[in-house]
C-alpha cells in the first residue's frame, strides 16, 4: 500500500513576506513496510508534510495518493484516515475522555468498529504501547505521568489499526527512558508490518531506525535515500542546517586527528565502537 506525493505544493492562507510555500513541488513514494525518517530544520515543512500523509491538509496543487486514493477526495477521506494514522506533536494535549479506555476507543468507534472490535482494539493498543490494560483502562488519562499520557495518545491512533503510521516528533519533551519506550513502540509496529513515517530532529534515531530518509528544506525535497547515502552528503546537510549522526561526526574527528577507520562511515554508536576496536587491533568483529 504505497503512499505517493505527486508534485505536492502547499501554501498557507496568509504568507509571511519572504516565506515561500510550506511544501514546494514535493514528489516521492513510500513503499509498504518502510521505516521512513523525515528530517529538516525548524520551518522546513516537516510537519506540513506529515499532515499531508492522512489528508489532514490537502495540497494546494499536486496530489497525495494513499493506495491510489487522492486525499483531496472528500468522499474517501474516512477511508484515507483509516489507512493512515497521524500522531501530532505533543498528542497528549488532545486527550479528552474521562477514562483511558474511552479515549483510546474514540477513534475505532468513529470508524464504525463494533463494540467487541473496539474492546479488542483498545486492549491490544494499550498493551502494545507498554501499559497494563487492567491497571489503566478505567483511570483518567489526566492522572497519568507525561510519558504515559503520550503513550495513551499514541494508542488512540494505533487502535484504529492503520497500515501507515505517521508520527510528528514523537519523542519531543520526553526523558531518555520515555524516548526509548516510544522508539520501542514504533519498532514493534514496524516489525508487525506497519509502515512508519517518523518526523524527527534526532539524526541518531533516524540513522538507527530508518531505512528511508527524506530530507526537507524550505518545503522542497532536498535529498532522499537510505541513511548511508543521505548521511554521506555531509556538506549538503550542513548547508541546510542539519547534522550527521554523532557516530559519523566522531569518525570524522578521529580521521582529522590521524585515525582513519576501516569500512564505511559508521552511523551508530555500535558501528563506531566496532570500527574503532578493529582499528586498534581488538577484533571488533567478534561479538
Amino acid at each position, binding site marked *: 500500500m504505497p503512499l505517493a506525493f505527486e508534485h505536492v505544493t502547499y501554501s*498557507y492562507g*496568509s504568507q*509571511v*513576506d*519572504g*516565506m515561500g510555500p510550506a511544501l514546494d513541488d514535493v514528489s516521492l513514494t513510500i513503499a509498504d513496510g518502510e521505516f521512513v525518517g523525515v528530517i*529538516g*530544520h*525548524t*520551518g522546513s515543512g516537516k*510537519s506540513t508534510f506529515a499532515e499531508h500523509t492522512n489528508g489532514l491538509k490537502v495540497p494546494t496543487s499536486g496530489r497525495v495518493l494513499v493506495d491510489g486514493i487522492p486525499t483531496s477526495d472528500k468522499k474517501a477521506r474516512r477511508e484515507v484516515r483509516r489507512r493512515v494514522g497521524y500522531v501530532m*506533536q505533543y498528542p497528549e494535549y488532545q486527550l479528552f475522555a474521562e477514562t483511558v479506555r474511552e479515549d483510546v476507543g474514540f477513534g475505532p468507534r468513529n470508524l464504525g468498529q463494533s463494540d467487541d472490535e473496539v474492546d479488542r482494539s483498545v486492549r491490544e493498543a494499550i498493551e502494545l504501547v507498554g501499559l497494563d490494560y487492567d491497571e489503566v483502562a478505567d483511570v483518567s488519562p489526566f492522572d497519568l*505521568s*507525561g*510519558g504515559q499520557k503520550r503513550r495513551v495518545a499514541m494508542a488512540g491512533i494505533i487502535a484504529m489499526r492503520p497500515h501507515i503510521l505517521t508520527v510528528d*516528533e514523537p519523542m*519531543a*519533551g*520526553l*526523558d*531518555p*527512558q*520515555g524516548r526509548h519506550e516510544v522508539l520501542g513502540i514504533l519498532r514493534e509496529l514496524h516489525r508487525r508490518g506497519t509502515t512508519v513515517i517518523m518526523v524527527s*530532529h534526532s*539524526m541518531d534515531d533516524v540513522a538507527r531506525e530508518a531505512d528511508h530518509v527524506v530530507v526537507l528544506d524550505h518545503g522542497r525535497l532536498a535529498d532522499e535515500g537510505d541513511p548511508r547515502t543521505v548521511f554521506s552528503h555531509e556538506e549538503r546537510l550542513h548547508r541546510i*542546517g*542539519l*547534522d550527521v549522526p*554523532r557516530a559519523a561526526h*566522531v569518525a570524522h*574527528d*578521529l580521521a582529522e*586527528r*590521524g*585515525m582513519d577507520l576501516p569500512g564505511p562511515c559508521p552511523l551508530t*554508536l*555500535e558501528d*563506531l*565502537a*566496532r570500527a*574503532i*576496536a578493529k*582499528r*586498534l*587491533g*581488538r*577484533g*571488533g568483529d567478534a561479538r
Partner: protein
Amino acid sequence: MALIEFDHASYSYDASGRALDDVSLSVERGEYVVVLGHNGSGKSTLARCMNALVVPDEGAVRVMGLDTADPDAQVEIRRHVGMVFQNPDNQMVTSVVADDVAFGPENLGIPQPQIVQRVDRALEAVAMTPYAQADPAELSGGQKQRVGIAGMLAMEPDVLVLDEPGAMLDPRGRRGVRRVVRALNERGITIVHITHFMDDALEAGRIVVMDDGRPVLDGTPDEVFRHGPELRAMGLEQPFAMRLATRLRELGVPEQAAPDTPHLDVLEEALCRSLSNM
C-alpha cells in the same frame, strides 16, 4: 550570600506525594547549573520555586536574600529571575514577533530606544531576525520557542532559568540557544538550565540530578556522569562519549585508550594517542 538558596524546602501539588522533598542547595552568582532528572523527578518544580511561581509548603527559598513567600518581594524576585518555559505558546501575547519580545522590557519601563536595541540583540541571539515582523501564530513550534527565549533575554535578568527550552528545537536551533546561553553566562548572568539533552549538560560547570523530589547527585559533569548505573536506574543516560568508551572497553580496548570521560575531545585524544603508541 548565595544568589538562590533552598533551605529545607518541600512542596506538594496534592496528597499523592512530595514534588520537592526537603531540598537544600544553593546557586552562586555566575554559576552555570544544569538540572537533570526524568519526567516527574521534581526538576520543573525546583525551577518554578526560583521565581516564586511555586512557594514551598515547608522550608524557604530565598533569591538574593528575598524570601519567595513574601508577596511584597515577588515582583522584585521576578525582575532578577527570568523564566523560559517548555511551551512558548503560553508566553506569546502579541501578533508581531518584535512586539512580543518588547513586551517584557516595556513593562519594566525601559526607554524606547533601548528597547529597540534589546529586541534586535535578542532576536539576533536566537537567529530570528528575519522574522521580526512575522505573526507568532505563523511560526513553527521551534521558532516560537526561540521568540520566547528572546523575550526573556530582552529583560536582561540576573538569573535565567530555562525549563527544557530545547525540547522542540532542531539541532541547529539548540546549538544556537546553547551558544547564547553560554555567552550570557560569560557576561555574568547566572544560568539554571533544566534539560534532557546531555549535550546541554556538558556545557555546565555543575550538574544537579533530581530524583523523587531530591537532589541525588551534585557536581561537575565528570563527577556526576561517572555514576552510570545510578543514572540508568533513574531513567537517564550517560553522554555519548561515556557510552562509547564503555562499549569499547567491552570490546577489549584498554581503559587507557578508552577512559571514562563525558567529553568527546578527551576520548578522541586518548584513542589517537593509543594508536600512535601501537
